[in-house]
């Protein structure tokens, strides 16, 4: 069986700075989103439990050829990559179409894992769209996944309850950060990652644009930033502003 994990390359969010309210992305290192790393770890654990093969699928700019090493070091066996530098900020609909096309090239797919949301866009659409394209059952927001024979059991966490869902493989699952603690690869694993197979897929990346971004700016923050020396003074100020009326 093949386990597929979809991971998105994003700029390291900790390194993004804002100037004149605009995000500065040049020179920011690329990595995978944190929750995508949870998805990968979930895949590695399932692979270890079921003796499967783990394939990472990713769509992104050419830098991905480098970034993908992180995933190969952390336990993926091979990578299917769709690289294109022109596409820049790809829309969820296009990413989903390309990911689905890549998955169609893989035989005997048992489970397809996603993060609950990508680190930068966090729209939570791509997994659902891929499930729709492939016509597969899906279970979102998983906090645990078990595979027994050809049945997957997923416990998922909603706002007010947990649901235990079951489906025959293949299934699409998206995970939340709580599902596991991603492992940190060792140097030898990183060295071996360089030699793991990478498949570069030639797919037509042009897609219809469905969205338009009118602006994207850091919110204007106009706080008073008044320094206060003591608790007593602080409480007095808050009192005067009518914030402590109770």
């Amino acid at each position: 069986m093949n386990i597929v994990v979809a991971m998105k390359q994003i700029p390291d969010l900790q390194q993004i700075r804002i100037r004149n309210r605009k995000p500065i992305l040049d020179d920011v290192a690329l990595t995978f989103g944190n929750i995508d790393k949870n998805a990968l770890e979930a895949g590695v654990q399932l692979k270890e439990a079921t003796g499967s093969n783990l394939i990472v699928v990713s769509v992104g700019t050419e830098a991905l050829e480098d970034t993908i090493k992180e995933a190969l070091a952390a336990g993926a066996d091979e990578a299917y990559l769709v690289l294109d530098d022109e596409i820049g900020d790809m829309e969820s609909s296009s990413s989903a179409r390309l990911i689905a096309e890549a998955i169609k090239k893989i035989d005997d797919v048992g489970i397809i894992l996603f993060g609950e949301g990508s680190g930068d866009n966090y729209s939570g659409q791509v997994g659902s769209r891929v499930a729709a394209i492939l016509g597969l059952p899906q279970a979102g927001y998983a906090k645990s996944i078990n595979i027994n024979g050809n049945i997957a059991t997923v416990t998922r966490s909603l706002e007010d309850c947990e649901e235990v869902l079951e489906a025959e493989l293949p299934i699409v699952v998206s995970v939340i950060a709580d599902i596991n603690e991603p492992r940190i690869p060792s140097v030898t694993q990183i060295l071996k990652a360089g030699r793991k197979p990478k498949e570069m897929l030639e797919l037509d990346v042009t897609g219809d644009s469905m969205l338009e971004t009118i602006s994207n700016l850091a919110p204007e923050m106009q706080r008073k930033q008044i320094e206060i020396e003591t608790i007593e003074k602080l409480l007095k100020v808050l009192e005067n502003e009518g914030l402590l009326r109770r």
Partner: protein
Amino acid sequence: MESQSNEKFDAIIVGGGLAGLAAAYTMASTGLEVLVLERGDYCGSKNVTGGRLYLNPIRELFPDLWKKAPLERYIAHEEVCIMGKERSLTIRYDGSELNQEPYQSYSILRGKFDKWLAKQAERKGAILVTKSRVDDLIIENGKVMGVMAGGDELRANVVIACDGVLSFVAQRAGLRKPAQPKNFAVGFKEIIELDRGVLENRFNLEGDEGAARLFMGDASAGKFGGGFLYTNKESISLGIVVGIDALTEETPEIKAPELLDKFKQRPEILKLIKGGETVEYSAHVIPEGGLKAMGKLYGDGILVAGDAAGFSMNIGVTVRGMEYAMASGYYAAQAVIEAKKQNDFTQTGLATYETLLKNSFVMQDFNSFKESLEVLEYPRLFQHYPELAGNIMKDLYEVPAGPKAKLFPTIKKYMSMREMWSMVQLGRRMMKI
């Protein structure tokens, strides 16, 4: 989880700073199998420098490197500012040679430069693993055989210690003694972003011209050290360097970060950084430098380069280390390339390193600057003379309500016989630098 790589490298380089990357680039260019282990998130992430790289001495060592290197600005204007407590005297130097290609020196940002240099080394075939810290050396029968990193055993013909000023690797190999705090200075630095236009206006810069400013005296509270400012494309590197000893000998102890804050509040500085945003703050230890601070440079299966070897020169107001780091990395690489030809990685096989260094500007500089530190530790230089210079200037320029005093008596007021004598002595000491 211990695991062993069945691979054996020609060289493992500990530390992906300038020394390590220069060595990796050089070795990989000739086809050697090189592994660089860097503990930071990426190369340059933790590296601190003032920010001025002198290219002349190393240009020829890496002929293909400079065209596309992310250099910020070439330094076309030099200033030294002698700071008293309330006044200061600035000397500005512009020379046509500063404005002619090939330019002598550039401001750089390590975050960008190191990351780029790492890419170049990788392009040549070096393998770089970041977020990976070397915890120990593998030593068998007195010979260094490789390193331990996060439970992994990694083997190589040679290990090159490029792990910076407090080099744990060189110590572990018995090439250096544990460091004494009194032999070190500390540097604090901020990168302050400014709109490009504002910056060029403020410093009178055209195109890619840049400015370097050094500050003596009150910048380091009259202690051995000083302040520096370099202009980058869209930011300023601003910092101070001060001896650890000088800080701790005062009661209450001087807190170095506060020194930088105070320095920033000086009107001379404030107006230069106004409206800027501090985007990076860093602190770093600086080796005292000089020949005396140098340990052994190589042993069986090991070489030491860059700050790890002590190739850094602290002349108070500024530190020079980057070009020594890159050059020593280069020569270490040459020594390994030579050793591989002879298939001898013992001390004898690696001895070419020392010969190469001795014939290069690196050791020649360190020999000729042997005396510089003692001279510079002369306290009057950082406290007394800055006050003196400021006071003379004040009296020269001041037009009081009453009649202005004659020039000679004004100067005489400050230049007692004792003063003159000590200046002569200082002059003699300075000649040795």
